[in-house]
């Protein structure tokens, strides 16, 4: 079973306690009504869907209930970095290099 560390609880827990919330660091437009339909659709639906190192939102739904962010290699399913919500996105290229990719 995949073990994931929760940055709020500070412990590793089985994957069952977590839910993935899709790509991280997508900011909601500050002025939604000023956006065209295409721009709004882009914000709502379009994701990079990287094969490789990817920053995602995760939620410890059956634990502390908090959202956090994680960098995961979508090929090997390895978590490369876990950080709290609100912290800046780490440099994905250097994380990928550290992981030997």
């Amino acid at each position: 079973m995949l073990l994931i560390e929760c940055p709020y609880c500070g412990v590793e827990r089985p994957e069952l306690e977590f839910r993935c919330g899709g790509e991280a660091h997508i900011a909601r437009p500050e002025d939604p009504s000023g956006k065209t339909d295409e721009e709004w659709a882009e914000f709502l639906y379009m994701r990079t869907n990287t094969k490789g190192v990817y920053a995602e939102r995760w939620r410890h739904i059956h634990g502390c209930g908090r959202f956090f962010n994680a960098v995961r290699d979508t090929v090997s399913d390895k978590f490369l970095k876990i950080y709290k919500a609100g912290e800046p996105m780490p440099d994905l290229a250097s994380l990928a290099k550290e992981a030997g990719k």
Partner: protein
Amino acid sequence: MANPLYQPDAAEEPVLSLPAISMLKAAPLGRFSFRGRKAAQDAAAKALGFDLPQQPLTAAESSGKAALWLGPDEWLLLAPEDDTEALQAAMTQAIGDAPHALVDISHRQEALIVTGDKAEWLLNSGIPIDLDVSAFPVGMVTRTLFHKAPVMLWRIGDDSFVVEAWGSFMDYVAGLLAEPATELQAA
């Protein structure tokens, strides 16, 4: 070891009563879900008479009440059933206008007291986290999953746990917990 807050309910039959393990339904208890930032937390501490635990997965107990860390800004507060209303009034008054949520969930959850040499083994039949006392020491509290039901688990002694589940899930949790114990009876 027993916890003063969790007393067996004398009106209920034991769910399980074996030499290596006993499982008892706990008597009704006052429970609150409390959420709030620093200002509300400080005021809540005054009303409770002790600080809310800030260390993840820990609990604080004093004068018959307890506060259990469930999240960075979320606690479960426990008090004897008769003190529920008084505690709610005291908390509401102390916190005043500071943004917070204080919800009486006394009847949302029920508790099982699981005690015995085989308690860890029995709980691990449905909870995939390490319950050895070195990894899950006495006093540790967490929400997790028991099979498919969300539960709260609090270790109140070396071989003693409290399992809280929502009322409508309790038959499922108690039933599935009693199941592996038939293995002990057979042995």
